[in-house]
């Protein structure tokens, strides 16, 4: 593309400004986290004497080891089950004539728009009467339910595009429905379900409202839920707060950066379907 020097420069300036808008708040978290505790951090300069100790202090102060363990337990409870249920349902809705399938699919679609706020109050009292309130299951089960609509929608969209010829070939070879699914369609759908697994991980890891309401002991919550309580306790120690925030951001950020390419591609493919 032919463009003048001026155009090229203004284009670069705008893009750099937008990119800075994206990263400056996070960079500011980092530079602040590294200043001495109790000082008033100035600007975005790299501290002359970076206090990496602040991360260790935040780690112990918030009992992050406990939170990390708790988050992992919640994620391990949610992601595999949600993934399995959504994949099975999405596959069946795409490939079989499920009785009432149309209605079921619409019911799931409505769930895509339902705000968690509209369920949280009854959930609290339902889980209380089940005796689950305060346990991690109180977050795991509703979180699986909340993740169903998107997963079913996503996997159904994927399996609707699967080659019918493959199903036919498998059937002629004598494979039953389960074998056709498990040996042919599931392996072929690896990009779709692995992207869904990443999305499920991020959604669960970042979940705030459910743990806040349903688990009163902050150390049994997810990292994000625990951070809220940490903010209440250490709100005036800005260095610890910034360090704590970065500790919580790190896993999400790492997962995103590692899977960035495939993640964005899959997300885009799914979004436009």
């Amino acid at each position: 593309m032919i463009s003048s020097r001026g155009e090229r420069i203004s284009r670069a300036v705008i893009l750099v400004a937008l990119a800075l808008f994206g990263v400056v708040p996070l960079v500011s978290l980092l530079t602040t986290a590294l200043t001495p505790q109790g000082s008033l951090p100035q600007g975005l300069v790299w501290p002359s004497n970076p206090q990496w100790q602040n991360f260790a202090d935040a780690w112990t102060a918030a009992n992050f080891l406990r939170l990390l363990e708790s988050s992992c337990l919640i994620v391990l409870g949610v992601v595999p089950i949600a993934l399995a249920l959504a994949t099975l349902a999405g596959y069946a809705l795409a490939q079989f004539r499920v009785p009432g399938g149309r209605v079921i699919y619409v019911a799931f679609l409505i769930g895509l728009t339902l705000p968690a706020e509209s369920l949280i109050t009854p959930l609290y009292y339902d889980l209380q009467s089940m005796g689950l309130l305060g346990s991690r299951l109180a977050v795991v089960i509703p979180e699986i339910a909340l993740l169903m609509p998107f997963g079913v929608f996503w996997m159904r969209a994927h399996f609707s595009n699967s080659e019918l010829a493959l199903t036919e070939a498998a059937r002629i070879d004598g494979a039953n429905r389960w074998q056709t699914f498990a040996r042919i369609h599931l392996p072929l759908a690896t990009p779709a379900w692995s992207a869904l697994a990443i999305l499920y991980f991020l959604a669960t890891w970042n979940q705030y409202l459910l743990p806040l309401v349903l688990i009163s002991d902050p150390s049994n919550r997810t990292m994000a839920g625990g951070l809220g309580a940490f903010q209440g306790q250490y709100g005036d120690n800005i260095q610890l707060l910034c360090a704590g925030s970065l500790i919580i951001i790190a896993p999400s950020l790492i997962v995103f950066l590692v899977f960035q390419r495939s993640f964005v591609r899959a997300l885009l493919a799914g979004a436009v379907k």
Partner: protein
Amino acid sequence: MPRSGVSRGRSRTDWRALLWVVPALAVYAAFVLFPLLQSLQYSFYDWDGIGTATWAGFDNWASLFTNPELLHAIANAFVLILFYTLIPIVLGLIAAALVRQVRPGPFGTVTRVALFVPQVIPLVAAGIAWSWLYSQSGLVNQFLSAMGLGSLARAWLGDFTFALPAVGVIGVWVMLGFCTVLLLSGMGKIDPSLYEAARLDGAGSVAEFFAVTLPGLRQELVVCVTFTMIAALTSFDIIQVSTQGGPGYQTLVPGVAVYRLAFLDQNIGQASALAIFLTLMVLAIIIPVQQLRRVR
């Protein structure tokens, strides 16, 4: 074994196929659809969560339209649409158009990743990061002082006029990357010959944008609008962490109001009426938007 596999079993109702769907449907029905109906039921009662509930008729619903605090919360949700939806889409269109003009390489990739990062981090952390940026001694005020605009400095999130726009900017920050990346991929799918045709017709780059790019992005724009509008109307995390709805109720939104009514004020009926109203509001806005997707 019958040979015509396609039609086999299709004439009879395929009950066993239901087995594949039932687990997902059961957990969804029990922990999403059923509580939703319970919310609807609660909305017609007065209940403190402990004692006996008493029938309240439409009282809780009526006060949605008379209680100034709740009205404010609903109005704020619509103001946030401006920040969560309109600004990110406009900026996203600009960013995407510019990234496309840059030769493929690290610069474009870095910009894309830098813009997308806010989308994947916990919103709670975003709220904390921005609370610090907006504080009296935070980066925003330092920047203003450095520009010689120190007189404008203030504690942004505590300011009655600026708290809501300030929270809105956090929304722009979170949503911009998603919109940019989605619009960018949409632009990549537009048939280049359309651009050539427009250029032959003598269209400038602005005319070309409105005649070719924008119509070509219909699908992506609908997805952006849907996703960001739901996020705006149901926002909770960022506001609960950064302002808790304050100062006064300047940044109160329905999500935070539901939480406060249900779990701090123990006014379950009112919380539920607002929650169901919020749900209806989302559906009333999102369903018409989906129709735009089909028109070609």
